[in-house]
């Protein structure tokens, strides 16, 4: 029962008009009960297909998935799983409260409907009809439907896509509070920031494979490097590259570009050694570039090696 989620050799290929399209190419993944895991990757990485197989919506071609020691279908039937799928609108002609109430009625141990309405910021909209909601409100209702199930495993497939800034902040706050109850949460995103702020662990997928798996801090160090730009004359490039926290250095005239594994340490080291550096700029994670680099070569033997190269 306490087996969490076990995925072994999971494979799925779609047959499209242009031939076979491998969506998931043999992934292994083990998630402990109570973990909050982000499934990180660009569009087409295989995140949604993996989630569909985890929820029993799609049959794998090969490999296996177990959820708390059961098949996905058994876990769903037992009410252990709640999910917010990537696409989906609401059925019409019900009030928000009624719809959430219907969902609650399908599960053995649901949360209180009014509590969930308050948690998801729907108090003011509870009596509105579902087909009259804005995009952001619809997402809140979809989240509420997953939450009211009080599932041991909460699965969220790119949940914040249609949300505004406030909506996102509220959403993640509620999600983290739910995770604190000891629940297992798996969410898909293509934003490193979301993974970093809301998960204990990030599993990064590209082209149907897992290319990195670890604490978010570790992933960030590998792919989320920052860049320091400064104006600094008369310093040798190799000397700059040897600075604490710097992984690579370039210079173009007086312009210096430092790629940093740890930009905090790097900036301290830079200013300590070279207090005359000026026009300093630190720019954030280059995740998109890492993704682009990975998706550029579809037949890469080992995407992880590419990733490391990009990170360097």
């Amino acid at each position: 029962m306490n087996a969490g989620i076990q995925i072994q050799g999971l494979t799925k290929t779609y047959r499209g008009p242009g031939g076979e399209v491998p969506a998931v190419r043999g992934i292994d993944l083990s998630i402990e009960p109570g973990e909050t895991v982000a499934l990180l990757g660009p569009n087409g990485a295989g995140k949604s297909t993996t989630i569909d197989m985890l929820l029993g919506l799609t049959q794998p071609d090969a490999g296996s998935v177990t959820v708390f020691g059961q098949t996905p279908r058994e876990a769903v039937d037992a009410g252990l799983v709640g999910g917010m799928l990537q696409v989906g609108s609401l059925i019409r002609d019900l009030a928000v409260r009624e719809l959430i109430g219907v969902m609650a009625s399908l599960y053995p141990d649901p949360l209180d409907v009014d509590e969930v309405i308050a948690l998801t910021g729907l108090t003011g909209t509870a009596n509105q009809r579902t087909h009259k909601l804005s995009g952001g409100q619809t997402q809140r209702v979809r989240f509420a439907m997953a939450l009211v199930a009080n599932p041991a495993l909460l699965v969220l497939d790119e949940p914040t896509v249609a949300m505004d800034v406030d909506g996102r902040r509220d959403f993640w706050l509620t999600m983290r509070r739910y995770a604190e109850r000891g629940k297992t949460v798996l969410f898909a995103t293509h934003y490193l920031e979301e993974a970093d702020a809301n998960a204990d662990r990030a599993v990064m997928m590209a082209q149907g494979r897992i290319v990195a798996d670890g604490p978010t801090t570790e992933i960030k160090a590998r792919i989320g490097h920052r860049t320091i730009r400064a104006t600094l004359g008369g310093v040798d490039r190799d000397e700059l590259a040897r600075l604490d926290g710097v992984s690579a250095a370039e210079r173009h005239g007086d312009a210096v570009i430092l790629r940093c594994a740890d930009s905090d340490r790097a900036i301290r080291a830079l200013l300590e050694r070279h207090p005359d550096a000026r026009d300093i700029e630190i720019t954030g994670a280059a995740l998109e570039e890492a993704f682009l680099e990975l998706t550029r070569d579809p037949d890469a033997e080992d995407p992880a090696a590419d990733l490391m190269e990009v990170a360097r």
Partner: protein
Amino acid sequence: MNGRLYTRYEIVRTFRNRRFFVLSLGFPLILYFVIAGSQAGDKDFSGTGVSAALFYMAGLVSFGTMSSMISTGARIAGERQAGWTRQLRITPLTSGSYFRAKVLTAYAMAGLTIASLYIAGAILGVSLPAGQWLEMTGLILVGLLPFAALGIAMGHLLNVDSIGPAMGGLVGLLALVGGTWFPVAHGFLHDLGQCLPSYWLARAGHLGTGAAPWGATGWLIIAGWTVVLTALAGWAYRRDTNRV
């Protein structure tokens, strides 16, 4: 616990969908008043021995209720397009509860269609013994079973764009060959019609006009179609929800 509230709200939201509700109840009524109303004085319609008001009430009850049952398919196709069917698949709602909700909703609409046409008939002067009203209604409700399954099967096999024409064509054809509009007295169409559930549904409606009850053939054909179409609906549902 599982599915009762879901069933209740399925019915509630169908009734709340005003356009659907008004059109599906209103269309048979309008047809009835237009066709039968103009001949309301005819006490021996085309030599059938019954009034035009009664004859068309019987015909439109079977046509209207058949449409009510099959229109389940349109709602299912819409729910599939909205991603709602997938959402339901990741809840513990059993497929049995899902089917029950769909069938009961269809029967609720059919029941209202029957009631509204009976009232319209009474307005145009139809009067039958209480026993005959009841017998006719009971047999119609049984005759609708295969159409309940057919609606669900179509909803899971067709998409939002194709289900409209498919429904319209199929209902029209079944009603025509089944003798809903005018009796198909003999020949190939008559023999074909006897094998269709719409023929027996129309016969049930025409109990009020003095038609004989089903007999063994009718019961067998309705039972056979119910079994076959229920199997088709189950297969369509599984195929649809297990898809990629």
